[in-house]
């Protein structure tokens, strides 16, 4: 995992990225000072509940935001070049060509009145200057790459004639069309059947390896990112709260929030029908975020300090693992509270 810094190509360097929206209700601080880096060929998972700012973060990196009412500050360097201040026009040569995005819902993300072939051919003709015939040929090849049967016939079909999984494959084909170096996948499997989910993730991963792309996988499901990413960033309330190489994170997570996220996914080693832990409460209001730690109001391990003093990102045992918590998992205060909690729950259980 740890590589020699000298010959690693840094594809993406984000520092203190802020993305705020002006609304009638006030300024929504959807992304509030996030720093990240991503090497060429690596996969980063961004994990959080809905409303944590993970989707906005990915779109903000790409620059794919509404034109008005948005404040975007900080720095986003792509291949060493600052892209944050670039105009939409300048970014259009980057979108689809260098950076591409797979969206969440394949049902609504494909144009319903345009043939699939045309939709794939569009960026090919635009960015690579292909002729109609060349683009069509390439589109067919792309459909084969994403393992759609009868590719030739599919070119002339409309999205509504395809199944959900098939449509997501089409979307992947569109994203891959111009050979981007950075691929964003925003909850690419949420809208799909469970059986199809694994296939789609496998396909994305395989294409990433074959094409030496970097991947940013946005999801609410820690289970999804586990097998497919090199590093994981956990977001809460518009902030980065923990970041570590995947293996390290799963072995030694520091944030109670990360732990809670992990407990909210079903696991095979648990007996079936065992209750899933649900994180109580709702994500914070990003117009008036809580003063201290943004997770504190929902955190079982929070103390007075958490409500008043905002924790800063701290380096854990290994230097590539950072977290923002006053009383992280494994600290004495954490254990103390944990004992109290288990006592309370057995007491409740005993009384029944």
């Amino acid at each position, binding site marked *: 995992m740890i590589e020699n810094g000298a010959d690693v190509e840094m594809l993406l360097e984000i520092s203190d990225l802020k993305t705020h929206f002006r*609304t009638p*209700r006030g300024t929504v601080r959807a992304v509030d000072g996030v720093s990240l880096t991503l090497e060429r060929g690596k996969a980063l998972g961004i994990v959080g509940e809905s409303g944590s700012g993970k989707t*906005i973060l990915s779109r903000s990196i790409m620059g*794919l935001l*509404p034109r008005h009412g948005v404040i975007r500050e900080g720095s986003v360097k792509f291949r060493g070049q600052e892209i944050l201040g670039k105009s939409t026009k300048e970014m259009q040569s980057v979108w689809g060509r260098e950076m591409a995005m797979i969206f969440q819902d394949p049902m609504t993300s494909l144009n319903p009145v345009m043939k699939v072939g045309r939709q794939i051919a569009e960026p090919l003709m635009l960015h690579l200057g292909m002729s109609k015939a060349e683009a069509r040929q390439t589109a067919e090849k792309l459909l084969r790459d994403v393992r759609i049967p009868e590719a030739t016939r599919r070119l002339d079909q409309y999205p509504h004639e395809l199944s959900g999984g098939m449509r997501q494959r089409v979307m992947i084909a569109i994203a891959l069309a111009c050979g981007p170096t950075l691929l964003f996948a925003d909850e690419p499997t949420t809208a799909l059947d469970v059986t199809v989910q694994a296939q789609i993730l496998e396909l994305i991963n395989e294409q990433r390896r074959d094409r030496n792309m970097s991947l940013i996988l946005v999801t609410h499901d820690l289970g999804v990112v586990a097998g497919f990413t090199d590093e994981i960033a956990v977001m809460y309330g518009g902030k980065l709260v923990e970041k570590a190489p995947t293996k390290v994170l799963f072995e030694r997570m520091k944030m109670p929030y990360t732990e809670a996220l992990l407990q909210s996914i079903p696991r095979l080693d648990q007996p079936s029908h065992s209750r899933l832990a649900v994180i109580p409460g709702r994500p914070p209001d990003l117009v008036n975020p809580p003063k201290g730690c943004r997770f504190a109001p929902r955190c079982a391990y929070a103390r007075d300090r958490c409500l008043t003093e905002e924790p800063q990102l701290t380096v854990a045992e290994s230097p590539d693992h950072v977290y923002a918590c006053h009383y992280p998992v494994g600290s004495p205060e954490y254990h103390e509270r944990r004992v109290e909690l288990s006592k309370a729950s057995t007491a409740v259980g005993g009384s029944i």
Partner: protein
Amino acid sequence: MSDTDNLVHAVDTTDGGATNPADSPADEAVKRRLGWGFWLCIGWIVLMIVLAFLAPYLSIKDPNANFIDMSGKGRPPYGPSMDHWFGTDKDARDIFSRTLYGARISLTVGFVAIAFGLLVGGTLGILAGYFRGWFDRIISFVFVILLSFPSLVLAIMLTSLIERSLLTISLVLGVLSIAPVGRLARASTLQYADREFVTAARQIGATNRRIIMRELLPNVVIPMGALALLGMAVAIVAEGGLAFLGLSVEKGITWGFLIQLGSEGSTTLQKSPWIAFFPIFVLFFTVLALNFAGDRLRTYLDVKESAL
């Protein structure tokens, strides 16, 4: 349409889709106020009604008298002056007082027409929506037939068959408004007929008559009220069109007739544009006021576009 207009004011949408963080409580507030524009329009409409009503009692000039000027201004028409605010037509009749008198017929026709349309169309629509079945099918088909003519063509056809008096012209235009009003009433009734309070009333043994009068009517009347202002505007314009074509109330002064007088022949409009233009302005502002007020009211009462 305008509810959506208000909603998009807050969020730019071209590049939108990415996020829609605007949870629009402020838009809600905009929607829930009628605004000064609405009251301005109502003010104009009330002014017009009052002036029209009081026209014979105001000390304005006789609309049918000829004010030939002997002091060397030559032959009429005369342009606007202190004496004749809106000028005179080529028979030296005062345009200002004629415009006020014109309001009498134009507004009456507009009012009676939409009242008739609401009464007949509303009743048929509610009954069709409540009883459904074959009755609904027949009524709906009648509405389709009425709507399958361009309204002006239908109006012209009907006026050709009758004596053109104030009442008959009003009724002809009322017939035209039956189908649009009826469809709205039917749609609103369908919307309410299955609600709990109607089912509840039926279960405690209320008669159909009671359910319709007590439960449905109050709910259906609200969207119709907003439609009434828009419908009145449409009727006034339609009357204007008929009058312009010489097919409205015979020998009566109406706005459309005045406008027609101002534009007939090849030189009237060129030499004395005021004859046509003053009535045009008054007609235009009245219709605009009715449209705007009706539109605001519809937004305010939150009548769904689809129901129209």
